[in-house]
């Protein structure tokens, strides 16, 4: 446990084995491990909005499982396209490092989320509105995503210095990930758990498309 926290500390500082310039000696497998270790913490806190009955405790477990699922499933869907586009742009030799940078971004997002979890719980405690809880979680995800982006950029910088096309691929990744991630998040709802709705892993309604819903909200 202490080793894991020490690694997380070195990772956040970008020092020791996680120095952005030292890709060869970087323990890359720590990055997904950090996602698995930290993202469920926020998920669990996120699902603790309504603790009125024993059944509702299930949402804590569900959300704890769904946050890493959201991150990994989105990555898995985006990776084939990212791989082929990197190859076509002549960046294949750096692909391992590019994936590590992407995973570093997600590890950073997970750690940032975990650090914001107590804040979320405090918000639930002090404000009982479900709508306010939704907005607060959106804000926390935005903050954590910004932190993840900063860390990803830190690992992408040596790549961009080597070949400017990595900047384009970074933008492609961010765009693709955001596009798929938003729909994945919509599909995996509920994360917080509406107190008026029954407890369920997935919403008891047919799947729908987040972008279509937004477009109709704006244009109708």
């Amino acid at each position, binding site marked *: 446990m202490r080793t894991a926290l020490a690694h997380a500390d070195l990772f956040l500082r970008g020092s020791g084995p996680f120095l952005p310039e030292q890709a060869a000696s970087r323990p890359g497998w720590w990055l997904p491990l950090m996602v698995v270790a930290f993202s469920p913490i926020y998920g669990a806190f996120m699902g603790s909005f309504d603790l009125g009955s024993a059944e509702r405790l299930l949402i804590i477990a569900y959300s704890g499982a769904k946050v890493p699922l959201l991150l990994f499933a989105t990555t898995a869907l985006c990776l084939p*396209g990212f791989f082929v*586009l990197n*190859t*076509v742009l002549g960046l294949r030799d750096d692909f391992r490092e590019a994936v590590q940078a992407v995973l570093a971004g997600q590890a950073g997002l997970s750690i940032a989320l975990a650090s914001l979890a107590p804040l979320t719980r405090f918000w639930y405690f002090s404000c009982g509105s479900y709508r306010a809880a939704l907005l607060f979680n959106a804000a926390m995800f935005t903050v954590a995503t910004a932190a993840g982006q900063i860390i990803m950029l830190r690992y992408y910088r040596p790549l961009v*210095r080597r070949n400017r096309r990595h900047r384009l691929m970074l933008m492609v990744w961010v765009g693709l990930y955001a596009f798929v991630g938003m729909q994945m998040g919509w599909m995996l709802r509920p994360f917080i758990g509406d107190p008026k709705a029954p407890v369920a892993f997935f919403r008891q309604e*047919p799947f729908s498309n987040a972008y279509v819903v937004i477009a*109709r909200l704006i*244009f109708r």
Partner: protein
Amino acid sequence: MLSAFKQLDELLRGRITSPGRLAEGKVELSLRRFVPLAVGLGASYGFFMGWYALSIYWGGTSPEPQRCWQLLASMVKLPALFLLTLMVTFPSLYVFNAMVGCRLSFTATLRLLVGAIAVNVAVAASLGPILGFFTVSTTSYPFMVLLNVAFLAVAGCVALAFLLNTLQRLAYPVVPPPAPTSPPPPDAPTDMGRSSLAEFSTAPPRELGPLDPQPSPMPDYAIGQAKTIFRIWLLIYCLVGAQMGWVLRPFIGNPNMPFSWFRPRSGNFFQAVFHQIQALLGLN
């Protein structure tokens, strides 16, 4: 099978179309390998495309068993779209090339175009999992149409960039690489950026990707004619491709219409995309 994918990998990495291998105006791309590969990759994208009709069928909103045929139709039609576009455009592309004295032979032109199609369908197929994910979670037909148009446009742009770069490499004579320059004296003043570049200059030279520009471009007067032909290539290829897609529709299968292998010929591709945008935004 594995060797076919290895060859595809070589193509995507730009090794098959590296300036050195194109030096004699030959494209070393096996048609026997790449045509079936392009068909297979196109069919895999077609699978994700046609899956929408199947998911609608399973969802029960349009429960006609015939809808399952759409999956097969899409798997057949998508590779057909590319190969038929090639069949239609190839003669004129070759003739225009020959007219301006481009050194590409008949088979080299064909191989180059098959290579571009392979790149196109490989990029499209790599986006297939995302398409499949949206297919499973979306009932909106206009959204699926626009998503497919977007993905195929991205794949098409990459393929066109590949085609243009390879054509440029073929059209320009290969200039021998410049002699390595001597390193600056150690006491020479350097700023941060330069020192970081100097750090990388000791590394072995990176191989050119398929979209990397020719390192020693010819002067403007020499490339004018070739550029005109490239533009004609682009225009013909894009217009025929878009219209071929329109002729071969339905690819996705409108849930409000019964399954049919082909639809009556009316309107055009660009009109249809405009209507789908309107439908998605609820403006019609």
